[in-house]
């Protein structure tokens, strides 16, 4: 069948090829088409080359952020108040995925495919990682891990989430972290924050963000199309955040919360706050605001239902009343009026003034809390009996301008520089403020002008005066330490990962009350008398078995307008021991009606715990 002959030429020559027109055009077509291919190839390589090479790098070189562990927050004795617990997230790089994968992922983790598709489509950068589901369950994590080899562009990212100890007790102090919001990102972008980072939102988490955050590391990993790491090209390890030691004593904080909660429950109240401060240093030993809320809900991804429940709760659990609740101080303000009267020479410690059931000022009647005359008394007894009409007279003698000056000297009306965001200043009113409260047309009407009645009620902590439980605690600490208004602090020290001290709290005197030691002692004497009188207040100390060694003052402040039978808040401020005070506290009961029976026992309860556990609180 085969003929070998034609394979070999025995002689002769080949004829000249017959290049017909058709064959020549076919050759020209071939050359032309290959020319077009070469032209397009050159365009791809030369013109688009750099851009496509960058895409190639983005394809195979994955830049991963190595999350820094956020710093742990401890109480003053080193008990951790928050932990970083591991969490698994389903993360994808959209450009590396096939469209069919979403359906499979949907069945693996139970998120509707449309939801995921919408997220993927909304992604700005197809090569940046995108989290499709946070906090996978162990079963989901396993299911996805098993399928990973067949799911290019998908991987499971582990990261730490904050889990708070006793969030209802420590929540308002610690706050929580959450994903960075767009406006925050704009502000923080310069500090290297990334769009998907978590950031402290409120509380110490926000106040000490710069210490707690640490700095993220990164790694450039070479990956194959399945997302498996082939090679780590470069890496910069993360630096964990600093360890923060609070001044808070966890045990005292729990006791304070328990006492406050018990006190509120006893009297059918729903909200309150208490701040315990060391009057020698300004260190906050306890800070409680009730009701609290579960901060862990936020770090674990709060549901819309939970969030709106918290937002719409009439008791406003999200409000940290200790620093941001502004209320009239009521009678607890009388130490300011007393200081002003004494220091300005309007009265002496021995001056006796009458305490009638009411005072008539220019035809306006201003009542005492008692409907009968308590007789003549000096300033100490006036404080102890909380005689309103006594202080009306002192306020009138001192005048509103001087009174405001002393109030400010005691720290009223200033937002305290504490390591928390959202601190409110309260308010020390004055004439201009009052007039500015009215609209422009009414600016000079009688109702808008400061009147004698404003001055008189100012003297008993009413008028337009507002304060916060924190301001109250600092104020009573100043009375305890002889007139030094201290900068309150929540942070004892901050240590970096190597254990070096980065920050150490120092006692800072922000203001000194312009009053002689003798005058302040006279005021303190009234506070000691208040808790030692053989009726009302002293009962709680005796009942609790706590020696009434210290000074205190109750206050039942009216709010919501002027007139009789207004709703009230109950206050109690207290310091102890009397000679060498080492603790001062404020207790606030929202809508409390009788400070002596509603607020004072809570303070005594806290004091009882403090005395009983002195050895552990002050080792």
């Amino acid at each position: 069948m085969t003929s070998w002959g034609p394979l070999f030429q025995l002689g002769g020559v080949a004829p000249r090829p017959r290049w017909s027109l058709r064959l020549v055009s076919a050759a020209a077509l071939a050359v032309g088409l290959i020319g077009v291919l070469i032209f397009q190839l050159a365009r791809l390589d030369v013109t688009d080359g750099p851009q496509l090479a960058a895409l190639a790098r983005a394809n195979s070189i994955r830049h991963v952020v190595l999350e820094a562990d956020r710093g742990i927050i401890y109480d003053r004795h080193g008990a951790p108040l928050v932990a970083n617990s591991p969490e698994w997230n389903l993360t994808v790089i959209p450009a590396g995925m096939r469209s069919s994968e979403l359906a499979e992922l949907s069945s693996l983790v139970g998120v509707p495919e449309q939801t995921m598709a919408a997220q993927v489509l909304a992604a700005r950068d197809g090569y940046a990682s995108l989290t499709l589901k946070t906090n996978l369950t162990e079963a989901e994590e396993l299911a996805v891990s098993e399928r990973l080899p067949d799911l290019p562009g998908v991987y499971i990212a582990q990261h730490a989430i904050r889990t708070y100890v006793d969030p209802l007790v420590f929540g308002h102090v610690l706050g929580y972290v959450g994903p960075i919001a767009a406006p925050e990102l704009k502000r923080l972008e310069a500090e290297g924050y990334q769009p998907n980072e978590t950031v402290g939102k409120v509380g110490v988490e926000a106040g000490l963000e710069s210490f707690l955050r640490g700095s993220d590391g990164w790694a450039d990993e070479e990956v194959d199309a399945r997302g498996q790491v082939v090679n780590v090209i470069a890496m910069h390890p993360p630096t964990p955040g600093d360890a923060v030691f609070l001044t808070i004593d966890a045990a005292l904080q729990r006791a304070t919360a328990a006492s406050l909660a018990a006190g509120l429950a006893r009297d059918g109240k729903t909200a309150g706050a208490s701040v315990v401060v060391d009057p020698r240093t300004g260190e906050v030993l306890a800070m409680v605001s009730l009701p609290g809320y579960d901060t862990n809900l936020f770090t674990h991804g709060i549901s819309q239902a939970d969030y709106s429940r918290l937002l719409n709760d009439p008791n406003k659990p999200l409000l940290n009343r200790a620093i941001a609740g502004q209320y009239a101080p009521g009678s607890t303000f009388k130490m300011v009026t007393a200081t002003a009267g004494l220091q300005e020479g309007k009265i002496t410690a021995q001056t006796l003034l009458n305490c009638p059931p009411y005072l008539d000022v220019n035809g306006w009647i201003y009542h005492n809390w008692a409907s009968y005359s308590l007789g003549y008394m000096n300033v100490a007894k006036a404080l102890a009996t909380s005689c309103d009409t006594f202080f009306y007279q002192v306020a009138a003698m001192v005048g509103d301008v001087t009174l405001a000056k002393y109030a400010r000297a005691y720290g009223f009306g200033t937002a305290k520089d504490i390591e928390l965001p959202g601190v409110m200043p309260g308010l020390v009113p004055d004439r201009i403020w009052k007039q500015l409260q009215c609209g422009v047309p009414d600016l000079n009407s009688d109702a808008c002008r400061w009147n004698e009645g404003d001055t008189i009620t100012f003297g008993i902590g009413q008028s337009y005066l507002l304060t916060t439980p924190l301001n109250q605690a600092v104020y009573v600490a100043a009375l305890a330490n002889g007139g030094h208004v201290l900068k309150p602090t929540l942070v004892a020290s901050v240590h970096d990962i190597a254990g070096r001290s980065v920050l150490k709290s120092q006692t800072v005197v922000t203001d000194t009350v312009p009053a002689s030691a003798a005058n302040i002692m006279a005021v303190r004497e009234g506070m000691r008398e208040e808790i030692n009188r053989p009726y009302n207040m002293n009962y709680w100390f005796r009942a609790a078995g706590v020696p009434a060694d210290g000074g205190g003052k109750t206050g039942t402040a009216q709010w919501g307008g002027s007139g009789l039978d207004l709703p009230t808040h109950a206050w109690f401020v207290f310091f102890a021991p009397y000679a060498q005070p080492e603790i001062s506290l404020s207790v606030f009961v929202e809508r409390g009606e009788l400070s002596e029976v509603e607020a004072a026992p809570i303070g005594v309860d806290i004091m009882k715990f403090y005395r009983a556990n002195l050895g552990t609180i002050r080792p």
Partner: protein
Amino acid sequence: MILRLDRRQPMLAALLAVVGVMTMFSAGADWLRQIVWIALGAAAYVAATIYDYRRLRPLAPALYAVMLVLLLAVHLVGHAALGARRWLSVAGFPLEPSELSKLLLVIVLAAYLTRDERITWRGFTGALGLVAAPAALVLVQPDLGTTIVLLAVALGMLFIAGARPAQLGAVVTAGVVAIPILPHLLHGYQRRRLEIFLDPTQDPLGAGYNLLQARIAVGSGGLFGRGWLHGLQGQLGFVPERTTDFVFATYAEQFGLLGGVLLLAVFGLLLLRLLRTASVAPDRFGELLAGGVFAMVLVQVVENVGMNIGLLPIAGIPLPLISYGGSATITTLAALGLVQSVMVRRRHVVFQERPIPLLGTIRRRAQA
């Protein structure tokens, strides 16, 4: 005694096969198996060269029947992969009849068109009818790429056989008319491929992924490439079908524009050698055989490289001798062997007047 072989043609083919194995090796594919395919293909080449192609002419009707039977068999007992039914199992080896059908069609059409020196309308429509049946069978596999190759081969052979411009124009007109209808005839994914080609940004993760990744691979090669075994996209698996449909992207990433131009030049030289064989063929059948193989190689190179660089829509067509695959490699080498068979049987004049020596020398100098 002089060997009458066209020595450049097998050298160019061997060069391509070596490049193919190198690319296979770099992509971590089964390059050893590809070497086995090439060895089998080389055997087919030698056999075809020795075989007198003229004996094929009377076998054409039988070959046509074999082609149709094989293509039908695919539908009845074929194996499916990637959503298409394309493989037959022959003695334990996978056979892709659609690859074989390319060569069979060349033989059948060459035999058919040899009958008349001039292409009549009747003959023209007859040729179209001959190609229509296998093309339809391949299209429903579905295999759009091979369908395109079959149609293009038929057109190319008709052109070389001397079809009139009016006849070719009629086919082109029919094609233009068919374009609006075509989407309805195509399978969902085929239609999608066309749409994606027209607008690749439509679906960068799904169907556009292949196109985008191939373009990235080719483009990132730059002028000189990343170097053999230093490709990123190909080796890391970002290029889909990196040893078959998108083998050119894998190659171009490593060897760059320079390598791409050289490879295309080798293909160009090979194609010109095939046309040269056509030009010296002893008969019309041999001329059309060589012309048909030329058309078959050309359309596959253009479509494959074209889709790799984003010039043409994606259709599953292998790059001859470069892409991985037994059926395609063996078919291509057998086809080249057949052309060689034509070459060695070229006309030669034993007693021809010797040209004037001086003139011959001058001509040879000018050629050199």
